[in-house]
């Protein structure tokens, strides 16, 4: 898989436009699809959305006609790519089913990145938020059963366990405690940079999705749960984006975005089992190579920098892979479920002083009930038990074991 994207021309950007009929792709079948094809679709949609948002922000910093036109051109292509990728989601897949897919992405992407993260501090950051997203999957799975009688494992197909993580109601921190120190751009491992950019895009997409879908529902429990978890995703975007070094220039960031997209599409292509969708990943990889050339050319011409100065000689030979991480998640749960944050530090909850702002936020926000707890109570009442998919045995944390079952 390892190759140097700078040596690949890809498809020239001017040749990348597609007609409406080409953009209007056939969606996958929600019951036949490999769950990890669904997660790849969700991730790459988020990656394209991030690319588009970044490009718009960059365009607002300049009035240079040629640069703005180049950004407009590559951004329009990004928009077409996003339409194709997001169009793979079928209309019959409800927003709640898509949400379960989003949380399966959050669990298995974050866990995979953490397992392969060379920098110990960045690994801690990934592990920390992993347990929170892991809990969200369990909460939404219970909402799914409560509202529709559906079993989330029909979507996740037992590849990802569904049980409590760090309980959502304890995740509500003071905003000051979501900000982390950042990596140093010269010394960061290129793989780490791409890990952080990828998780920022993924979490941002999840935040945006929940921000916009909370109002889809009539049921107050669903509206409340989406709003509550959307606020945690806001915390996660704050948490992850603060890991990025603000020293990098706009042009460097543009190059990094395109480079990361090449890496991710080639990763998705390598593991995709659906031949039709694999061809889309391959096409988009070649398109990203063409877009990378435009960004690199702009960097050379305007900033006087050779992209090879700051990029690795080849993309990592380890493709980002969706695969089960059950044992890893259980280990992280056992080791860190009680962690909270105090400023930029991670600390066990019993080391926080009683007057810490964390407890004040907890009291204020959870006053009057917490949707993420209410959904479990309501589903337990409706079904006589809560919904879990514990494949590897009982929950590793005694306090989080299913008391109704035992």
């Amino acid at each position, binding site marked *: 898989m390892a190759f140097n994207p700078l040596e690949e021309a890809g498809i020239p950007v001017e040749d990348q436009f597609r007609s409406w009929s080409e953009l209007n792709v056939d969606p996958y079948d929600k019951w036949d699809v490999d769950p990890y094809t669904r997660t790849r679709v969700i991730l790459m949609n988020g990656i394209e959305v991030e690319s588009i948002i970044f490009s718009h922000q960059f365009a607002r910093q*300049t009035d240079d006609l040629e*640069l703005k036109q180049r950004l407009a051109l590559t951004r329009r292509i990004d928009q077409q790519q996003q339409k194709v990728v997001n169009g793979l989601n079928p209309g019959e897949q409800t927003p709640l089913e898509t949400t379960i897919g989003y949380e399966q992405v959050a669990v298995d992407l974050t866990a995979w990145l953490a397992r392969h993260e060379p920098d110990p501090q960045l690994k801690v950051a990934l592990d920390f938020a992993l347990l929170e997203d892991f809990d969200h999957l369990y909460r939404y799975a219970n909402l799914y059963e409560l509202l529709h009688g559906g079993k989330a494992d029909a979507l996740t197909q037992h590849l990802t366990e569904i049980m409590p993580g760090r309980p959502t109601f304890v995740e509500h921190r003071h905003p000051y405690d979501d900000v*982390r120190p950042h990596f140093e751009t010269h*010394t960061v*491992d290129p793989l780490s940079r791409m890990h952080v950019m990828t998780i920022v895009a993924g979490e941002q997409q999840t935040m945006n999705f929940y921000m916009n879908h909370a109002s889809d529902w009539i049921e107050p429990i669903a509206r409340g749960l989406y709003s509550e978890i959307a606020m945690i995703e806001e915390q996660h975007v704050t948490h992850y984006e603060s890991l990025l070094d603000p020293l990098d220039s706009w042009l460097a960031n543009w190059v990094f975005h395109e480079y990361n997209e090449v890496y991710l599409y080639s990763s998705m292509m390598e593991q995709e089992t659906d031949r039709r969708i694999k061809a889309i990943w391959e096409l988009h990889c070649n398109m990203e190579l063409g877009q990378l050339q435009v960004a690199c050319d702009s960097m050379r011409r*305007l*900033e006087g*920098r050779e992209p090879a100065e700051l990029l690795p000689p080849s993309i990592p030979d380890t493709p980002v892979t969706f695969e089960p991480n059950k044992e890893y998640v259980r280990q992280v749960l056992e080791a860190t479920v009680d962690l909270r944050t105090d400023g930029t530090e991670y600390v066990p909850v019993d080391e926080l002083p009683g007057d810490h702002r964390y407890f004040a936020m907890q009291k204020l926000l959870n006053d009057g009930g917490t949707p993420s707890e209410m959904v479990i109570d309501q589903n337990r009442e409706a079904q006589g038990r809560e919904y879990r998919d514990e494949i590897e045995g009982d929950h590793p944390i005694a306090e989080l074991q299913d008391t109704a079952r035992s």
Partner: protein
Amino acid sequence: MATLTPTTASGATAAVGPMVYVDPARVHPPTTFEELIGDSGLNGPFIADLLSDMLAHERAGSHLYRSVHGRTLNPVLESQYEHFGEETQEHVATLEDLIATLGGDPQYVSAAARATEKSGTGLVESTYLLGGSVDALTRELVMLEAVFLAEAKDHANWEGLGQLAPLLPDAARDPVAAAVEKVKTQEDEHLTWARKTRGQLVMLQAETPAPPPAITPPDELIERIQQMLA
């Protein structure tokens, strides 16, 4: 070969800051130069950071010269930017050699170097981000002013190092003085040229009656730019 952008591949190290996290394997030890400075009473870690800062400025200067060399429409400026850019890249190599000779790490990026890199990036960005606000003639001045500002700091950097040299113990004094000696004349020339040429461009425009650039046909404007300084 000089490193223009330190990375993990080139062996970059950095210092931890209040909000800067560095992988423990890449943290620069804060005691560099202590042995070399000896009992001179000088601040070794500060001097290590200062040299890293100077190096960051030379590296940013190399990028600036590459950028303006590729975009100027004036052949005199183009030729001089290319020439000074080559010399600036030599200054990067000179500083890297000096730091290594003093027992330091040329791949170390100090906190001051990070700040300097940010201002260097801003200087280059000032020459193109508002490209749509300026006409071709004004753009030439903007690029030249960026060079002038960069050279002013560059000159001050080497002048400062020259003042520091006599205070250093013998083992450090000679290589520092030699590096300053090697570069100082060129830095004098860079700054003098940038100041003088900027003045010339300003006076040329002030003393040459012509329609405003905004209403001048592009071909005519380019011709005016190409003939300036001829």
